[in-house]
């Protein structure tokens, strides 16, 4: 099976190679603001915990969830700024995956959190992700535009996701809560495995 996956990977790497050459040009197309907006969407390390965070907030009810719409973007903005002031903090990637597992488990358990905890979690995740995305900036990047882009997409994503999860929960049927909790459990599973991976030295294959 492993061999098959590798063969497949090789095949697609070949097929995908020309497309790969274009991948980085997209970032520059609409300036650094849009580069910043696009950056978190190029992988799962950002959208996955954002989704879980939005669901967790929705589980707290709209009155507490709405504070996330402020707390999270502020965290992103400050985190992006910190990446300029103090680059190279090495534990952030580890923190990121640990947070994926943590939020996922909180959703699975449908934890009820006090308002300060909701805000705090939003700020912490914002800080970590803003920092991590900010690290992607190069010398020639317009820092302000890039960080604004990251903040804007974070704000828009978290707002839409929280609203969708809230609307979903307000429908009838107990299965809705169950479905959200199950999705949290799946996020946690990904997070746990990604966390474990941080401690596994990739062996020669």
């Amino acid at each position, binding site marked *: *099976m*492993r061999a*098959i*996956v*590798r063969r*497949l*990977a090789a*095949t*697609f*790497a070949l*097929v*995908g*190679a020309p*497309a*790969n050459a*274009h*991948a980085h040009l*997209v970032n520059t197309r609409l300036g650094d603001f849009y580069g910043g907006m*696009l950056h978190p*969407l*190029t*992988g*799962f*390390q950002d959208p*996955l915990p954002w989704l879980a965070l939005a669901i967790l907030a929705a589980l707290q009810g709209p009155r507490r969830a709405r504070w996330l719409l402020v707390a999270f973007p502020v965290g992103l903005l400050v985190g992006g700024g910190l990446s300029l002031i103090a680059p190279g903090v090495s534990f952030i990637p580890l923190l990121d*995956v640990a947070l994926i597992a943590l939020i996922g*488990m909180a959703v*699975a358990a449908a934890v009820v959190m006090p308002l300060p905890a909701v805000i705090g979690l939003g700020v912490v995740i914002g800080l970590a992700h803003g920092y991590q995305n900010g690290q992607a900036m190069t010398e020639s990047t317009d820092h302000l535009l890039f960080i604004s882009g990251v903040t804007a997409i974070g704000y828009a994503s978290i707002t839409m996701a929280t609203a969708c999860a809230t609307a979903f929960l307000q429908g009838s049927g107990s299965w809705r809560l*169950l479905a959200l*909790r*199950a*999705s949290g*459990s*799946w996020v*946690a*599973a*990904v997070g*746990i*495995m*990604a966390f*474990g*991976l941080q*401690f*596994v030295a*990739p*062996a020669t*294959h």
Partner: protein
Amino acid sequence: MKDARLKATAALGALLALLTPAPALAHIGVALGLQSGILHPITGLDHVAAMVAVGLWGAQLGNPAIWVLPIAFPLVMALGGLLGMSGVVLALPEEAVALSGIVLGVLVALHARPQLWIAAVIVSVFAVFHGYAHGRELPYAADPLAFGVGFVVATGLLHLCGILIGLLVRMPLGERVIRACGAAVGCVGAYFLLAALGAIG
């Protein structure tokens, strides 16, 4: 056997290649990782069958199993994944998956209703081995996180299939259909067990 699986993988790969999100947008590694992650659980029929059986059984058992299983399963599976990643060698993983297929299939076919903790242990054994099989692949994926997401999405959807079929339990005829599905899963498990032991194929 291996050959058939290879063909299925290739066909599905071609299919998914058409659906893959824009390589121009996503980094190619993400697309690759996601793809192999999705393909991995659904190209092994033994895993597919057992996974559907878990959903079927959950629906059959009703409350509280129907909500404990989908929530607890991924977490236990992740533990299996950790074992697989860390290089721990579990004995006879293929046999164990096939065997859990047989056991789950038979239990569904018999409409067995053991206590929740017994059901949980049986499902957990399968979950650990299922996670283990994929955890071994994870570190080598083009993008491990994307691989994890793909693998979890595919597994979750299979689960959901089982639960949806299982909802037939409310209808009189549906009950029989489910038990027949259970029997079919048992047969698939038996086939794979024999194949793994080298008796056929």
